[in-house]
């Protein structure tokens, strides 16, 4: 019997069990941001929408509109405001309607 066969048996299965079980490598994927509404001011929301290179963030009044479809998970908003923005950890983002990807994040409400 070839050695690679015995080695494969000893090491176990290499293929992911993904749909049935979570894949361990998913934790290392770059993921879109998650926002802390209690830390988001209007001024900060404007700064984040300027920092975003892919037009995923815009401010409309007291709401930050986040288009998860447009987000490239580059992490620039996280770098700009580490206290208010973290990685969401969500990678299962497929949508049957693009409107489901547009999220309205409420702001703190206080002006600059």
């Amino acid at each position: 019997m070839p050695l690679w066969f015995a080695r494969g048996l000893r090491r176990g299965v290499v293929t992911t069990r993904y749909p049935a079980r979570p894949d361990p490598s998913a934790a290392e994927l770059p993921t879109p941001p998650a926002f802390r509404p209690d830390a988001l001011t209007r001024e900060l929301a404007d700064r984040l929408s300027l920092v975003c290179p892919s037009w995923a963030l815009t401010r409309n009044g007291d709401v930050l509109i986040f288009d998860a479809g447009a987000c490239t998970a580059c992490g620039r908003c996280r770098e700009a405001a580490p206290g208010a923005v973290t990685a969401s950890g969500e990678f299962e983002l497929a949508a049957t309607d693009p409107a489901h990807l547009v999220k309205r994040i409420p702001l703190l409400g206080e002006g600059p």
Partner: protein
Amino acid sequence: MSPASAAGDSGNPALPASPAALASPAEAADALRRSVARQFGRSLHIRTLDTGSCAACEQEIRLLTAPHYDLHRLGFFFTPAPRHADLLMVTGPMIRAFDIAARKTYEAMPGPKLVVATGACALGGVYQPDAFTHGTVGETLPVDVWIPGCPPSPLALLHGLLVAVDRLAAKVRDLTFTRSGGDR
């Protein structure tokens, strides 16, 4: 499905109820969509279409056939011809020069057919609409499933494909992308 195989699968849940049993056209359309998805859930052939992407999406799509993800275990296969394809996987911002080719590819596919827009470009993220690009695939083709990501990881692509055939639910609708101060 041929009559012979339909007879063999008597009581097949994939077959829709008779039109008289369904209340409205919308209900009938939904039942038909679900029955198509169940058929595709067993075996689905994918044709990829690059409409001006940077090839990062293609690289991730290529990884789906690697041993770690092993797309074939789920009944998905890639085909080089749109005439053999059930699902069109479109990457890139849909450059205007590609309109005719994209339409011809879509029309060459036998029905029923699905279109999956793949990556942030295809979803309107990276390129704004201008003289050269539509900025989103939805302008040219009827998209069924949208997969975000730049590029979407093979796991995200797998999830999107399984959503397209109704084997997994799309859960992004319920995500808020907010986190209260207590978390983390």
